[in-house]
């Protein structure tokens, strides 16, 4: 290295910036952090979006499908059960109706028989009195 190089090195030696340079940089860093904090608050949106990214999406879809299947199965079971109950109630009603009809038919038959008997007795008595009158 010759004298000229030495002169150049001396001329272009490092110099310090203003004494408050570091503080000013750190103040800007603090400002930057302040601005970044509200962004962190909305981080849940980012996490939600990330959740629906392919790898996680597979699990989410599988979970949702499982839940839907359980709900659908429960719905079908509930519907069948209530249909079965309704049919059972109708059948019960029909049976009760049949029994009432039967009871009424029996009662009617019995009434008819009694009425017939009463009529026969009345005819019989009427004939007896006519024979008595003739005598």
């Amino acid at each position, binding site marked *: 290295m010759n004298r000229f190089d030495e*002169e*150049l090195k001396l001329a272009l030696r490092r110099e310090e*910036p203003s004494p408050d340079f570091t503080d000013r940089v750190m103040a800007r860093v603090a400002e*930057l952090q302040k601005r970044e904090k509200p962004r962190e608050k909305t981080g849940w949106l980012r996490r939600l979006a990330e959740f629906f990214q392919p790898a996680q999406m597979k699990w989410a879809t599988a979970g949702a499908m499982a839940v839907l299947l359980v709900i659908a199965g429960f719905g079908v079971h509930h519907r069948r059960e209530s249909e079965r109950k309704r049919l059972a109630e109708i059948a019960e009603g029909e049976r009760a109706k049949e029994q009432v009809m039967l009871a009424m038919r029996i009662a009617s038959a019995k009434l008819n028989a009694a009425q017939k008997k009463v009529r026969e007795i009345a005819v019989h008595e009427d004939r007896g009195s006519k024979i008595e009158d003739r005598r």
Partner: protein
Amino acid sequence: MASETLEDQLIERKEGGMQRADDTLSRAKDGDQTAFADLVREHQAMVFSIAHYFSRDRATSEDLAQEVFIHLYQNLAAIESPAHLKFWLRRVTGHRCIDHARKHKVKTVSVEDAPEPVATTDFRDSLMTEALRRIVATLPEKPRLVVTLRYQEDLDPTEIAKLLDMPLNTVKSHLRRSLAILREKVTRSMGEIKV
């Protein structure tokens, strides 16, 4: 024996310093503000001076240096080691200086048009320094940055080529031509001093 001990002590001290620099960098990467401030303090002279010898304006250089450190803060995760940090800072500062000069269309006076300082024996040394700085500032952007990195940062042409993504021969040619111009200009202005 004594020299060996002194050498060992120097090696130990150097290794200790590297360890500390490593620790500071990892703490800064973990979000430690004090550690980041230490990094700024450690490298501010380097960053500021590159910008200063490039722009020749203190306020502009401080703004540029601040931008470089803010950019560093935002990219700390990408810094692998203290050596990489130095390389990164020099590279980013160099690119920022060139970008800034292009955006603000800084006038680079041709070397022939640069004002020549008048030398008197009493102020010869300080004038020599001032003259060299002034003439360096008149060099075109890339040669100016190459000269600054060569003489301020003591980098060899290979390192400069790597830093500025420039072919080695271009760096060498920038250096050769810039030195010839500087020599001629300084000799003309300070005729009696052997340079």
